[in-house]
């Protein structure tokens, strides 16, 4: 029998959930609000929430000063490129670990995750030197490859967890019907795993979009994405909070909209395997 939930309990939990949700969203809301203020209003004390003269001046200044579309295009190329490449490698890798586990599969999975524990700056110099030798500094190709590599452990783990939910008997049946390995992955496994792959893709795009170490240290002009666009508005000597907020809003808007429309897949992807 389902557990009875009292109305009072429902109200408390709903209020709590909304409270936590708003607290998490508040910095984004504040950034968006600040982007419509003058610099003087942005630092007003006590802070002004909605009752101010809304202005688009900051957006005009940012548009005039920076080539937003170039940064946006670079962000799109890096996020989609690294995700596509990552999925190409991760699907077969996760398949083999989920359906043909060997004695050391668990160790391999843990080892892959351990690479995420290395501070990125630890390999900055070697990677820079390699890119200089290859003539690939400030190139999108190099960054797509690097972003793919740093997110690969997470993609493989997510897909592995999702593939484990799929009964191996279905794949066995396909094999008995004469399906080759390629057919098995392409026509049996992939259609069944589409929701899991979709949520992995979405999460990886978000991770690649927000990556702000490699994208700042390995780019100058040609491959600089929106993270570099935001960084160019941060100033240690001078109050440009409103302009910085406008730049931030422009940088997060595309990913925020994408996240809004795909939240169902995202939540599913992040919680699958949690409840058996």
């Amino acid at each position: 029998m389902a557990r009875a939930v009292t109305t009072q309990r429902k109200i408390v939990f709903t209020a709590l959930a909304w409270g936590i949700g708003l607290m998490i969203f508040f910095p984004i809301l504040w950034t968006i609000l600040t982007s419509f203020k003058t610099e003087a209003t942005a630092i007003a004390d006590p802070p002004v929430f909605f009752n101010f003269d809304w202005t688009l001046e900051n957006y005009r200044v940012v548009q005039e000063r920076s080539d937003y579309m170039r940064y946006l295009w670079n962000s799109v190329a890096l996020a989609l490129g690294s995700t596509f490449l990552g999925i190409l490698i991760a699907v077969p890798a996760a398949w083999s670990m989920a359906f043909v586990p060997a004695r050391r599969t668990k160790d391999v999975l843990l080892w892959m995750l351990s690479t995420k524990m290395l501070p990125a700056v630890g390999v900055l110099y070697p990677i820079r030197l390699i890119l200089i030798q290859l003539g690939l500094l400030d190139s999108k190709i190099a960054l797509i490859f690097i972003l793919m590599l740093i997110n690969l452990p997470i993609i493989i783990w997510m897909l592995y967890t999702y593939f484990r939910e799929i009964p191996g008997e279905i794949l066995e049946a396909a094999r008995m019907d004469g399906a080759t390995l390629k057919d098995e992955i392409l026509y049996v496994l992939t259609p069944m795993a589409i929701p899991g792959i979709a949520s992995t893709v979405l999460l990886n795009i978000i991770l690649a979009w927000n990556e702000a170490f490699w994208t700042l240290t390995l780019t100058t002009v040609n491959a600089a994405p929106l993270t570099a666009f935001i960084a160019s508005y941060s100033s240690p000597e001078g109050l440009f909070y409103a302009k910085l907020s406008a730049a931030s809003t422009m940088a997060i808007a595309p990913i925020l909209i994408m996240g809004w429309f795909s939240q169902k897949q995202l939540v599913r992807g992040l919680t699958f395997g949690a409840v058996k």
Partner: protein
Amino acid sequence: MTDTLRALMGATALTAVALAAQAETITIATVNNGDMIRMQGLTSHFTDMHPDITVEWVTLEENVLRQNVTTDIATGGGQYDVITIGTYEVPIWGANGWLVALDDMGADYNVDDLLPAVRGGLTVDGHLYASPFYGESSMVMYRTDLMEAAGLEMPEAPTWEFIREAAAAMTDRDNEVYGICLRGKAGWGENMAFLSAMANSFGARWFDMDWRPQFDTEAWSNTLTFYLDLMTNYGPPGASNNGFNENLALFQTGKCGMWIDATVAASFVTNPTDSQVADHVGFALAPDNGLGRRGNWLWAWSLGIPASSDAQEAAKTFIAWATSSAYTELVAAEEGWANVPPGTRTSLYENQAYLDAAPFAEMTLRSMESADPTSPSVDPVPYTGVQFVAIPEFAGLATEVGQLFSAALAGQMSAEDALSQAQALATEEMEAAGY
């Protein structure tokens, strides 16, 4: 189509191809401040004069810029052709051979017009390694109305004791007005820039002539105790998180009686668009203790060329343009004299139009002239730099010491503990570095 027209079109196409082939691109790495952004806006004037040079700008936050440029130079990446660097880096990088000497900048450049203190800070073994774009010192900015209400008059050259007296008289915690606002945020360019300069006026120094750290001296104890006492009694709450921008916001919204910080702030606090107290701001030299040194620093953002650049001649042409007197006149013509980059050339301070437009100009010049990077403290030192020590180890060491002093300001440790830990830390790091 006539033959003449065909020939003309062919010649035009050839010229375009030739120009495109010759066009050299220079990538300029810079920080986000008003003067630098203004320069970006005026780039077309440069490219009109030099159609064979294309300019690409990379604007970054100061710390990111420092990290990227250092990494690029150390690995010989050659990503940047012109870099914006501070007075701390130039002597070190110049001595390392990382920068191109700017000895032949052309007759129009007039190197002798550069302010001597600034030029000295950018010169290594007689070679100028970066050309100053704008320079700054630090000074006292104060509220004339609050000072008058307190029945006090700010001298042109105040003592630290007067600053304490005035801070006490102006503090009105009930109305959220604090007598003094100073940097408290940890960092070599944050609280340690202020405290190192302040320490000079108390007779303290970072190292003696044998490179022994000096935090165990009475002079440092007096410096830190005075600073903590001043800030605890008359400073704003949460001061250990305040850097330049936080104090600027406090001052502009009328919460500070006095603020001792970069002279570049003068143009912000007197700008009626952003500052609520624009009509009530006065300026004075940084305080002293009668020991012959004032607590002000000297800094210049300068343009240099990394040795790894493959467009050094074009980069030099750009720097000669951007740091010339002609550029100053261009800014004045386009945006008014009050907006020209200050603190680099003597001729600017002899220009009556500038002096009329910038009421803080004279105090800025006097502050800059009173700072001597080669002899910053009362006792002799083995290093150059007023608010820094021009050795590679300084940035990391001073940031760690700054964290200790910031913790003392937050009430997490006493002044004695902070100083003894700083002494131990500095001794260990200097020994490890081979000094």
